[in-house]
């Protein structure tokens, strides 16, 4: 199979380029894209990418495969390859450190902006804070985020304003805490989000939903934040 890989090593390359490599796939077995990367690295140890758990929970190996962002370790080759060719690029919109490795500083900074931790100024009880299964169910579809950045780097609003628009991943986390019955900083959290960029740059185009490897829906979360802002603001 032909694989076209985005290559850039700042030590030697002036500009990035797509380089063709070829790899023999074992018969009758549908490899994951990460397996292909490992085969390629066997041929050329200088190829760089992040990976770790190889089962889709650590969020290291988000890359762009034939145009679509996803996790290399849980994406079967057959699902993305087009006309016998696999095209691998780094996640769009973030500065490339080397090959498929992007600098995620901006992404993490947006995550940190939403105060992604529980705030509750009441002294904690001796045991756990109680939460009904229904209240807990509000967190489903939110807490599972693995911060792989597939969504935010598929989002044009994040490409254009990565410093101002929080992006789908950060907003999903923002809502994860807004929705938590144990969090008491709702008003404070909302007031920080009521500017023309942080939340409202979302145009509902749903690239985030279409690529999320965990099947989460940031667009819905953003909608919920907007309605909370609306309720607070009117």
């Amino acid at each position, binding site marked *: 199979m032909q694989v076209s890989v985005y290559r850039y090593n700042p030590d030697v390359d002036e500009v990035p380029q797509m380089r063709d490599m070829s790899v023999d796939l074992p018969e009758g077995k549908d490899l994951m894209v990460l397996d292909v990367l490992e085969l390629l690295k066997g041929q050329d140890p200088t190829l760089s990418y992040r990976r770790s758990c190889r089962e889709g929970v650590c969020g290291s190996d988000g890359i762009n495969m034939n145009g679509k962002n996803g996790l290399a370790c849980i994406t079967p080759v057959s699902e993305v390859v087009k006309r016998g060719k696999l095209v691998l690029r780094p996640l769009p919109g973030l500065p490339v450190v080397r090959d498929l490795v992007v600098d995620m500083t901006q992404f993490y900074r947006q995550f940190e902006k939403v105060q992604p931790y529980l705030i509750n100024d009441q002294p904690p009880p001796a045991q756990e804070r109680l939460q009904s299964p229904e209240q807990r169910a509000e967190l489903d579809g939110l807490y599972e985020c693995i911060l792989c950045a597939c969504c935010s780097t598929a989002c044009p609003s994040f490409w*254009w304003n990565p410093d101002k628009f*929080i992006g789908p991943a950060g907003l999903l986390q923002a809502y994860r805490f807004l929705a938590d019955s144990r969090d008491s900083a709702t008003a404070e959290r909302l007031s920080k989000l009521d500017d023309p960029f942080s939340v409202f740059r979302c145009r509902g185009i749903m690239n985030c939903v279409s690529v999320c490897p965990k099947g989460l829906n940031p667009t819905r979360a953003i909608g919920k934040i907007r309605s909370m802002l609306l309720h607070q603001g009117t």
Partner: protein
Amino acid sequence: MALVTNVTSLTRSGLADFLIQRITAVVLALYTLCVLGFLLVTDNLSHAALVDYFGSMGMRLFSTMAVLSTAAHAWIGMWTVGTDYIRPHYFGTGATVFRFVYQSGCVLILFVYVAWALQLFWSL
């Protein structure tokens, strides 16, 4: 304290801009349907029929609303477009200047539209 501030958005509040854009959208949608409906159902469209239609007090007020809605709606939209694409990444250090020129241009054109339309509808 908001995470991001920007002085050239319409209201500086994301929520207010958002709401204004939605409300004006509804006004404009209704206005479009009204006018289009009139044009479609009127068999022999004439100058007199047009003046009659747009000259009524109700339509004058509705048109005024639509004109102002257009200005607000378009400003928010065009401002968003400008702050999306006119970035240092593409326009270098001149981006701010260029964005200022672009925004001023938008304001000027919208002002012309509003003045023109108001004069048009209220002089009938």
